[in-house]
């Protein structure tokens, strides 16, 4: 048998074959519909604890800063967070620092608000999107009214019971940032840095490790990281949702990644070894 040729063919495998493997690794577990179980991490528990301090009537600022690309990871967090807030009788002011976020979030929260019998304008308000991230974060400190004279639906903010008397960060008991990356850093620097308001964050998986140091400094009280964070939060709320189910597919794809890295390296080492042996 021609070993060098076999090994070489592994290294030069068509990338479309790898694409197919990835597709299968995601699709098959989804078809099996297996629900994973997870053990919550400290950071997720801290996130939950942060939300637990809310009482009846407290106002929470939720900033949903992500685009459609991260929706499958972050929408479950928004759903779980809104459910948690409404269950506690707290109220929600939502905005988005990504234009795309507006289209994703309003419908989601609307559904949950209906489920918990919450009225728009009294229990929650959607402010919409504004450009220039640092400016918006800083401007909310004084009052949302100058930046958002109207909400996303065109209502005057001064006429809605929830927002009529809002006067900057001191009126918010908690700030929750759900972000795919672009703005979480800005919230730490401009939002927490300037006003020291309690803040929790739901981050897409990729940026989680980079933000761990802000958790240690208490600049962020607690974080949910990626799909796993969302799944842990769902489990703590006893709210079986999409995240818990998707986690199984995630597990298998991780294994595929590990296998690919290992096979890639073994084939490389083998090629080198064979080359040396034949010389």
């Amino acid at each position, binding site marked *: 048998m021609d070993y060098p040729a076999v090994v070489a063919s592994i290294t030069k495998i068509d990338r*479309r074959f790898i*694409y197919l493997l*990835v*597709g299968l690794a*995601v*699709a098959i577990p*989804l*078809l099996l*519909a297996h629900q994973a179980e997870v053990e919550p991490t400290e950071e997720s528990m801290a996130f939950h604890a942060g939300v637990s301090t809310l009482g009846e009537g407290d106002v929470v600022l939720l900033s949903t800063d992500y685009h459609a*690309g*991260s*929706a*499958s*990871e972050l929408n479950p967090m928004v759903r779980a967070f809104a459910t948690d807030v409404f269950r506690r009788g707290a109220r929600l002011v939502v905005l988005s620092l990504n*234009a*795309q976020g*507006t*289209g994703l979030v309003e419908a989601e929260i609307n559904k949950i608000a209906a489920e918990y019998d919450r009225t728009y304008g009294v229990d929650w308000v959607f402010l*919409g*999107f*504004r*450009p220039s991230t*640092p*400016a918006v974060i*800083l401007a909310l400190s004084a009052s949302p009214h100058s930046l958002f*004279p*109207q909400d*996303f639906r065109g209502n005057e903010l001064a006429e809605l019971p929830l927002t009529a008397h809002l006067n900057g960060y001191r009126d918010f008991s908690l700030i929750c940032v759900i972000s795919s990356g672009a703005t979480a850093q800005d919230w*730490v*620097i*401009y939002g*927490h*840095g*300037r006003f020291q308001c309690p803040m929790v964050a739901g981050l*897409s*998986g*990729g*940026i*989680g*490790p*980079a933000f761990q*140091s802000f958790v*240690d*400094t208490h*600049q962020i009280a607690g974080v949910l*990281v*990626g*799909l*796993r964070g969302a799944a842990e939060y769902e489990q703590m709320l006893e709210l079986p949702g*999409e995240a818990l189910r*998707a986690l199984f*597919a*995630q597990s298998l*794809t*991780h294994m595929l*990644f590990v296998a690919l890295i290992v096979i890639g390296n073994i084939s490389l080492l083998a090629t080198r070894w064979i080359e040396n042996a034949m010389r």
Partner: protein
Amino acid sequence: MSTDPSILIPAVVTLAVFSILYRENPVFRAVERLGVGLAAGYAFILIVRTGLIPRLSKALGAPFDPSSVLLLLPLAAGIGLVMSAVGHRTQLARFAVAGAAAIGAGLALPLLMQALVLSQMKASMVPMGLSSVVGFNALVIAICVLTTMAYFSFTREPTGIRALFAISGLYTLMIAFGATFASLAMSRITLLIGRFLFLLRDVFHLVQ
């Protein structure tokens, strides 16, 4: 299979985008260009219709406030930007850019110091030692911070003990980058799961 257009249309474009995995093709290109136009238009409407117009109409409708005259300055500069976009270069556009950069820098300066420098410095100054897990971890973190900082040196090549620090800094960075890479892969996988779930559940009804 679903026949609802609100499911079918997204399904078609989803598959059109996936077609790039097989090879470069005109359908993918077409969908991509359509997406660019849609995204630009979407952002434009949100900014103009929900942001600019209510603000301006409020400023015009409200009783005269001397301080709102100050808003005319950036407004003029903004108009200068629009004019330069259609080919009329004006000095106003230079003021707009310079002003925005200056305000941005001024706002950022103390906050960068606070959030990225002072807070992070303070967090490293905790009691450490080998007798407890917490102390040990704090020690490792402190060593990592100091070596990573030593890795970047711009005035002269690190030599001797500094070179040792710099090398350790490189290894520390690699550990952090490895961890981040893995988490990033994780987050991207989730996106794909979202799309597959849409296709398998909403379009083809293969899963509940």
